[in-house]
């Protein structure tokens, strides 16, 4: 579904990603893990068109998407839930969700999609008319995920959805991500929460200093010495 080949991305003159190759198949949950500054967010921003690669290619459903603008990429069916959620705090919960359906095709079905999102997150329906800033941190994260679903994506990019949440809410977020996969949405998940991520995902890719360090099925990574030492502290 998503194919990344030999990707190099720069911030000005500083190279942030080196020769990244990665593929995500339909219906999979693929995790990107790695420490701060490893290039995880940079990779997501390159996929969704906010940054353009210096070399290499990105294809989605067989079509080249590197070089497209962010709105064209959203229209193709990739949705991005950014780090920290970034909900619009002085807009209501409902307005935030409607913004998620901004693209042409999604806007026409937005009332139907909002109902589906309310089924996943009943708390958002209760708070429909409240300003997003009155929501708790966990609820804001739910809203960000719900907003990401409003464009009816085929592929969803999550950037640290569990960041800053209590353990109970982290479990809730992972539960939601699993249920999205059951609904047929493919997921690329960036996380620092390595153990739980590897338990939820099918495959994972460990980034370090902008390079792919290890890649493989999660059950294999969980038992590999490298990952156990570096990320699980065993």
């Amino acid at each position: 579904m998503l194919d990344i080949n030999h990707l190099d991305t720069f911030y000005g003159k500083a190279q942030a990603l080196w020769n990244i190759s990665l593929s995500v198949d339909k219906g999979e949950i693929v995790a990107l893990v790695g420490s701060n500054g490893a290039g995880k967010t940079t990779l997501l921003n390159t996929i969704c068109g906010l940054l353009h690669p210096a070399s290499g290619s990105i294809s989605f459903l067989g079509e080249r998407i590197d070089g497209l603008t962010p709105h064209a990429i959203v229209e193709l069916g990739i949705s991005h839930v950014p780090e920290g959620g970034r909900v619009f705090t002085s807009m209501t919960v409902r307005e935030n969700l409607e913004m998620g359906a901004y693209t042409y095709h999604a806007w026409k079905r937005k009332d139907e999609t909002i109902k589906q999102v309310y089924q996943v997150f009943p708390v958002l329906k209760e708070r429909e008319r409240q300003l997003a800033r009155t929501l708790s941190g966990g609820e804001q994260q739910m809203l960000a995920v719900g907003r990401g679903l409003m464009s009816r994506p085929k592929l969803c990019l999550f950037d640290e959805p569990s960041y800053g949440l209590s353990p109970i809410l982290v479990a809730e977020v992972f539960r939601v991500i699993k249920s999205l996969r059951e609904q047929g949405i493919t997921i690329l998940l960036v996380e620092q929460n390595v153990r739980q991520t590897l338990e939820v995902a099918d495959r994972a890719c460990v980034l370090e200093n902008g390079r792919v360090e290890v890649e493989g099925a999660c059950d294999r990574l969980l038992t590999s010495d490298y990952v156990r030492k570096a990320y699980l502290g065993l």
Partner: protein
Amino acid sequence: MDIIRGVFKMPRLWWLISLILLVLLATLPLYGSAYTVILITAIIMYVILTVSWTMFFAPTGYLSLATAAFFGIGIYTMAILGEQLPLLPAVIAGGLVSFVVALIVGAITLRLRGVYFTIFTFGLVELIKHLLLFWEINVTGTRGRFVVLENNNTIFGVILGIFVVLMLTYYLLRRSKYGLALRSIGENEEAAAHLGVNVNLLKVFTFALSAFFMGAAGAIMATRWTYVDPYVAFNVLHSFLPVLMAIFGGMSQLYSPIIGAVIFAYIEEQLLTRFPEYFMLIFGVILVVAILYLPNGLVGLVRKWWQKGLREENVNS
């Protein structure tokens, strides 16, 4: 079709009130004195500048001081084309020239944020003024231009027409998904881009749309002033007053900048005729009080009292 349906969703009462006020205004030349018509024309001019400025600032938070530039471009378009074109096409041309200039300026400057954008737009007024002055003195060999005079009632009719089109545009913009997207840009441009908003295009287009109305207002006002030069046409007060009027009235509701502009323009007119020597002083005091004590403008204050009143009524009953 969505847009047309949107018009009919506005509460009936508001439509009724707006319609009655509009009929009263449109028939003003029949019962009002010549002075009243001229006064109301000047007030509507300020209302147009204030509302079109608010249309861009309120959702996005981009504070433009280029109002005088677009207003002045409209004035000069009329001064140049007024003899060749009939009145209405010349007014629309004034709006279109401003629209195009705003598209170009917007494409260059809307990447700037915060205070840099504001300073650039302020510089734009001075830049166009002095370029024009240089051109007129060195190339055409004049300093000012005469504009074809129009009947006061005609001017009043045209400016009222511009006002109505502006209000409908602003109303529809606020209700549409583009209005929502503009607000999201005001909050967080990057997050808006993540959701598929073409941030730059939407900003530049809305900026140009607001410039269209400023230009059209300038074009029709030129026919009232009959003589214009770059200093009159590109007066920086036309950049500052709309900002102050919008702050004074508030920006949360569709009608709040109108109320701010009407009261402010009326006070200005009264002070100017009665206390010309204290005009700026009294004006300054009113402004300081408005900024210190009316964070949401006059309309915000009234709404607060209103809601408090309703609450007390509920307690009593």
